[in-house]
């Protein structure tokens, strides 16, 4: 398993609370995490009811101590890993005493503590890992470690170590992976990353391997996160192997994990691979550790100029083959031609090799399929082009060779391979010529190659100038006013109409003069007493309408009071009274036609003045 996923979090299982805490050498961190674990589990123990059922698969740690080493033979300049595992009561457990390691120098240590609770009991198991470097050659002894657990003294067996002079092959987790020289800047760091590519001057389309390397001298607190760079100028980011191995630098042993990615440059010139990022989560009070690689600049070379005519961008090492579904067919009956290109390189982008001239055949659009795999960090694959070809003439024919050119970056030259001719026997057929299958559209976006102004306009039908600005034409503003006047007039009219309909006094007052004028005209045509009587009714009726009173019972005295209330002038009231008296006299005196007509005229004049005096209808 990769160290990147070595310690997944396992917190939160029901019933069994298991905390797997990886602690660094930092004293504060170790004690604090331990304390948190103990306090948390103690709290849970008080909250949760003790389960009467013993959980399956949980083995309570028995008190004891063991010591193991990862190798018993090593060279003088190498390191070994000693692991002392102590289990017992959570409160009594303590680390081993390594002061007896006189033949070795402790150059590093780490602690992994596992605290578990089952059936209400807290137990702990601590794994103390020491990196030891031998101080001399010969047969050395790692002395027994003793520890007091639950009041008992328990000790391990001594371990014999054979130390030879010079160097011996290092023990590597992944055999066959060469150890990489660690950067000098590793000194004093628990984690370090770097990145490189295997070829800084590749050809366009040539596979290169981007290697991200993590140097690790301590365990992670949580799940780390690798964020690869955005390979903008490359395509085909195929993840290759992820080997790990050990290396030493600055007196420390580092576990190195590589993440390799196959890249194919897509642009010519200097292209830069942005830094990769590796995030290691921190503890409760420790920030995350964020590691960045350096950017890498790659100088991508273009292909040589002497490319064969059928070269279409294939880079690598390829072979081509072709076959037919059957070597015998009929005229106008399709056969399927498979063209396979197999090899190492940018297999996913290979274009179909052009078919040679085949006058006795018709070819239709093809289907493409690709399979790829990784062999020893090289992308291999097979790209298959499937074409329908239809013979149009009977006889023994031969499909001509199909050639395919690629650029081989290993030799820096173009290579052309071709298929063998395929003999085909075509029998006369009776089928109608096949209809070309409808395949995907070949539409392409329009590419503008030049811009120019739009062309001149033809002579218009009427070459006229625009009219003058209407804003300066009085008629325009009259057109604004007219609708407003009409709308305003209609509004007043409607308002008046509604008032007449709803206010009878107003309606009587409004029509009083009109009615009086009509009746006076009638009185003028009458003679004698009838004329006086009509004039009397006209004047009284007019006044009754204006005052909104009934005519009946309207005596001169009452009329005078009402007119006074209506705030008519005393002179006018007196004149009304005199006119009414004269009419009364005339009705009962000897008839004088001239006097009657004069009185009608006087009444008419009086009504005119009264109309002004009453003013706006109340």
């Amino acid at each position, binding site marked *: 398993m990769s160290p990147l996923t070595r310690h997944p979090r396992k917190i939160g299982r029901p019933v069994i609370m298991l905390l797997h805490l990886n602690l660094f050498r930092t004293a504060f961190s170790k004690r604090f995490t331990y304390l948190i674990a103990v306090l948390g589990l103690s709290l849970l123990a008080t909250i949760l009811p003790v389960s009467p059922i013993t959980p399956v698969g949980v083995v309570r740690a028995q008190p004891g101590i063991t010591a193991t080493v990862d190798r018993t033979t090593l060279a003088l300049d190498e390191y070994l890993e000693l692991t002392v595992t102590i289990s017992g009561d959570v409160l009594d457990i303590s680390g081993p005493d390594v002061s007896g390691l006189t033949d070795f120098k402790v150059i590093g240590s780490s602690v992994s503590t596992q605290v578990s609770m089952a059936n209400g009991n807290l137990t702990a198991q601590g794994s103390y890992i020491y990196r030891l470097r031998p101080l001399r050659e010969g047969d050395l002894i790692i002395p027994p470690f003793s520890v007091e657990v639950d009041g008992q003294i328990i000790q391990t067996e001594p371990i014999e170590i054979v130390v030879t002079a010079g160097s011996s092959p290092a023990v590597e987790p992944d055999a066959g992976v060469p150890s990489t020289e660690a950067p000098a800047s590793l000194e004093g760091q628990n984690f370090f990353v770097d990145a490189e590519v295997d070829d800084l001057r590749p050809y366009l389309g040539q596979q290169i391997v981007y290697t991200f390397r993590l140097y690790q001298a301590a365990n992670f607190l949580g799940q780390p996160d690798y964020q690869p760079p955005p390979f903008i100028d490359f395509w085909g980011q195929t993840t290759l192997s992820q080997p790990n191995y050990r290396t030493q630098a600055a007196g420390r042993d580092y576990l190195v994990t590589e993440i390799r990615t196959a890249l194919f440059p897509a642009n010519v010139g200097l292209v830069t691979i942005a830094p990769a990022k590796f995030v290691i989560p921190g503890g409760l009070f420790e920030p995350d550790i964020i590691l960045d690689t350096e950017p890498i600049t790659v100088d991508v070379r273009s292909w040589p100029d002497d490319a064969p005519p059928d070269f279409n961008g294939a880079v690598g090492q390829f072979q081509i083959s072709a076959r037919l579904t059957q070597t015998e067919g009929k005229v106008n009956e399709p056969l399927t031609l498979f063209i396979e290109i197999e090899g190492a390189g940018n297999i996913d982008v290979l274009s179909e090799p052009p078919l040679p001239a085949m006058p006795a055949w018709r070819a239709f659009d093809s289907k493409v399929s690709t399979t790829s795999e990784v062999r020893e960090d090289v992308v291999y694959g097979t790209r298959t082009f499937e074409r329908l070809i239809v013979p149009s003439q009977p006889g023994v024919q031969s499909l001509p060779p199909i050639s395919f050119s690629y650029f081989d970056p290993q030799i820096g030259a173009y290579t052309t391979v071709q298929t063998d001719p395929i003999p085909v026997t075509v029998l006369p057929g009776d089928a109608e010529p096949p209809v070309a299958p409808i395949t995907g559209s070949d539409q392409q976006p329009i590419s503008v190659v030049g811009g120019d102004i739009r062309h001149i306009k033809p002579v218009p039908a009427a070459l006229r100038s625009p009219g003058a600005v209407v804003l300066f034409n009085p008629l325009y503003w009259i057109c604004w006013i007219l609708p407003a006047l009409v*709308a305003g007039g209609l509004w007043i009219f409607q308002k008046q109409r509604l008032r007449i309909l709803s206010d009878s006094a107003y309606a009587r007052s409004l029509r009083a003069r009109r009615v009086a004028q009509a009746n006076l005209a009638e009185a003028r045509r009458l003679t004698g007493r009838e004329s006086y009587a009509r004039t009397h009714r006209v004047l009284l009726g007019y006044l009754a309408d204006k005052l909104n009173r009934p005519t009946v019972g309207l005596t001169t005295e009452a009329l005078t009071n009402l007119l006074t209330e209506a705030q008519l002038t005393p002179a006018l009231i007196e004149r009304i009274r005199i006119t009414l008296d004269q009419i009364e006299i005339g009705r009962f005196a000897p008839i004088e036609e001239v006097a009657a007509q004069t009185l009608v005229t006087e009444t008419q004049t009086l009504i005119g003045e009264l109309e002004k005096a009453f003013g706006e209808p109340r």
Partner: protein
Amino acid sequence: MKGNYQLSISNCQSLDKSFILALVIFLIIASLALAQSPSSPAEVMLVANQRYEIGNYDEAIAGYEAIIAAGVRNSDVYYNLGNAYFKQGDMGRAILNYRRAQQLDPPDADIAANLALARTQTVDKLEVPPEGVLINIVEIAEEWLTLNQAALLALGLWFLMCVAFVVAIFQPRWRRLSAGTMAILAILLLIGLMSMANRLYKETQSPPAVIIAPQVDVTSGPGGGDQYLVEFELHAGAEVRLLESRIGWRRITLPGNLEGWVPGEAVEPVIDQAQN
């Protein structure tokens, strides 16, 4: 015409023969002049277009300018004239005439396209500061309507508002609908009126103009660089606004609060006097 001359001669036997001869010559010249009467603007434009088609832009320009000098203000003529200047590489006059064409026919896509292309060919990059939303709405109306169209549209909206008002008076059931209609019409009318007012204000207070000189120094006063400080320089096609005119000099302003004086012949207002 010639028969009339002979008739005149027969009726005027007593006149001096030399005078009659002079009169005949005059009338013949006059008749020839009448026979070669000036072509109509449409015919001139047809010829100018033909000259343009064969790449004779000088004659095309002369033709279009003659039409304009005859008092014809037509967007197609200005547009074609702008094209001819564009082909000659005179971006100042090209932009000037595209702008004049656009004044007469704001929504024309060809004018807008060529104007935009011509603007990319100018030397001076003028940064127009972003305007408020209301100003943008008002100026959108300017991009689509001429002043007369906007005025007539506003009148139409006003008429519809009055109709909606009358409907509201006489049909109480439709009063709510009428009120909503009036509100919408009022908003549109307000925008239209603001657009007109804005356009009138700009065209009267700071009318648009275009630099037509290939390069001109903008000075701090109405005089040359030896008299006033040269503040900056402009090139053909720069679109400015006129603030003031004095004899031989015009005061201009640009976006970005730039101001100065340029020789009168270096800048041409978009709205020529006849068009105005």
